[in-house]
């Protein structure tokens, strides 16, 4: 990859004020998204993956504050002033998990598809509607002209998510962030939507940041993967390397937990990760996984070293290979 990354994140932290103290949801996170690649952020509930997405889009809830040493989109600094407003919904868009709540029930599909386009690109309403029809057809929705006059409740969950995808593509973005886009959908619909997303990503050459808890989705769709735990990235690698040769004990644990038809024997014991995620309220030092790690030693109370090559396969652990 010779061109500069489309998105560069360096030292991103998100703090949330709670009754019990400050919760450090994302802690000193750094990663980059190359043009035209699919990067998966994977982790379990509370690992900070959604907060990372929202903080890039500057859509954090009011109780949360963001700090970053560097947050740049195509070379532009997003962290200062109103830098994000020109690109958000335009060159950088988002697909949310729940298409029922992400769409406004009181407006037609057409109004919602064209709103952002008219705001960012201007021009006539008719041109915007033409583009909306084109994109609805692109996401596989038949009789698109009629759909524009419909309301969200008239569409099934799968169709709504297709509308969300069309909406994210209206302005011809360079980067789309999809936060668990298929988690609320049935499995056959999930496969259809993911296939569509993967095809569009390739065809349009957009960069896709896909946030998910599902290792199957990661393996099938990602070029590169960042595994998150307790607000940190603990391992990054290509999807191929991550599943062939996982290095971080958390990644290894996660992979061993899932039953795989044809691989795990029915009824045999699945891998487990004992214990619970540490509290993110207050200071957390050293390796965040050490309380649950089968390889933990005293030295894990200190900051774990960076291992591997930052651009290829990298992980943070005292061990070269667990």
């Amino acid at each position, binding site marked *: 990859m010779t061109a500069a990354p489309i998105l560069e994140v360096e030292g991103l932290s998100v703090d949330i004020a709670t009754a019990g103290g400050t919760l450090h949801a994302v802690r000193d996170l750094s990663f980059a998204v190359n043009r035209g690649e699919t990067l998966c952020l994977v982790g379990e509930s509370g690992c900070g993956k959604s907060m990372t997405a929202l903080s890039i889009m500057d859509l954090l809830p009011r109780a949360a504050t963001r700090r970053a040493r560097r947050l740049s989109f195509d070379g532009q600094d997003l962290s200062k002033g109103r830098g994000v407003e020109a690109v958000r919904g335009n060159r950088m868009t988002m697909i949310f998990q729940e298409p029922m709540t992400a769409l406004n029930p009181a407006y037609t599909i057409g109004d919602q598809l064209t709103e952002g386009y008219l705001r960012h690109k201007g021009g006539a309403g008719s041109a915007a509607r033409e583009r909306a029809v084109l994109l609805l057809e692109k996401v596989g929705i038949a009789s698109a002209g009629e759909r524009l006059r419909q309301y969200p409740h008239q569409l099934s969950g799968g169709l709504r998510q297709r509308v969300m995808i069309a909406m994210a593509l209206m302005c011809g973005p360079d980067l789309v962030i999809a936060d668990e886009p298929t988690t609320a959908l049935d499995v056959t619909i999930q496969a259809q939507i*993911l296939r569509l997303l993967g095809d569009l990503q390739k065809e349009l050459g957009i960069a896709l940041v896909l946030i998910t808890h599902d290792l199957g989705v990661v393996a099938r769709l990602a070029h590169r993967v960042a595994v998150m735990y307790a607000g940190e990235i603990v391992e990054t690698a290509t999807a191929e390397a991550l599943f062939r040769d996982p290095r971080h004990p958390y990644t290894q644990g996660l992979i061993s937990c899932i039953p795989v038809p044809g691989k795990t024997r029915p009824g045999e014991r699945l891998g487990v990760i004992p214990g619970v995620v540490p509290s993110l309220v207050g200071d957390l030092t050293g390796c965040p996984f050490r309380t649950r790690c089968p390889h933990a030693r005293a030295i894990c109370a200190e900051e774990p070293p960076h291992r591997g090559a930052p651009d290829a396969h990298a992980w943070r652990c005292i061990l070269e290979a667990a």
Partner: protein
Amino acid sequence: MSALLSARGLTRDFTVSQGLFKGRRTLHAVNGLDLDVVKGEVLGIVGESGCGKSTLARILLGLLPPTRGTVALDGRDIRELGRREMARRVQPVFQDPYSSLNPRRTVASIVALPLAVHGIGSSAERRRSALEMLERVGLPARFADRYPRELSGGQRQRVAIARALVMRPEIVVCDEPTSALDVSVQSQILNLLLDLQRELGLTYVFISHNLAVVEHIATRVAVMYLGQVVELSETAALFRDPRHPYTRALLASVLTPEPGLGIPDTGLGLAFPDPLNPPPGCPFHPRCPDAIGVCRVEMPPLVDTGHGVAACHVHAPPPAAARAA
């Protein structure tokens, strides 16, 4: 194979209001379904939202009377058995451990409640039984006097399992027991359920939309679509040789963590099932890639496939049609 729990011609209708001016319609959540649960098995039930699997669970638990049809436990109609007897022998574990536990009771009293309802033992004996069962599901005594809000999702699901087992039931109906949990917690709960099944000789009805989980835990699988069983088979055979196109699409949708395989094409169109307006003929035909003329008019019967039953005009044709062809 004698059935421990057996459903015949089960139908459950709901009346659904369609808004101010549209009147009411009948939704057949479960529609003429036959099902046998054999002692000692783990019967997996898979299907997508709206297929009636949770309604079926509630009927099998005796929590919801069927509109038509019967459920028999050991050959006796469950209406004759009564709710207490049913509750003693068939117990549930529900999906959401956040809403299925009373937030104002301690863990020990939640688990002991079924014993109290049935008037079993003294209060001290009930507490002892509850503690024993909690220990067994991996919650040591220090959890006994905590409240559900102090527990993680996985720990709550362990409490729900302990509550289901404290009456020593024969059958446990698990409705999406791990769907709300993270994968690392899901594996703990699946391991626990399998251990308990072996140790206590339990029979499970295990409802899930996750086929990888069902493949792991179930010995037989029933595939449901719009209130009906469309295929039922031994688990390994179903995964090796699925007959119904819907089963095939479900299996194709399982995303195993194997990089490079991409996202499979399910072969399904954009149509989605509407339980309020089931199509004539085979309920799956609007989405089916293999549908032929007869599928649009005639409901296919369940036919022996050699390793189970399937309802499909194309891939499991009834013997008469096979002769004609």
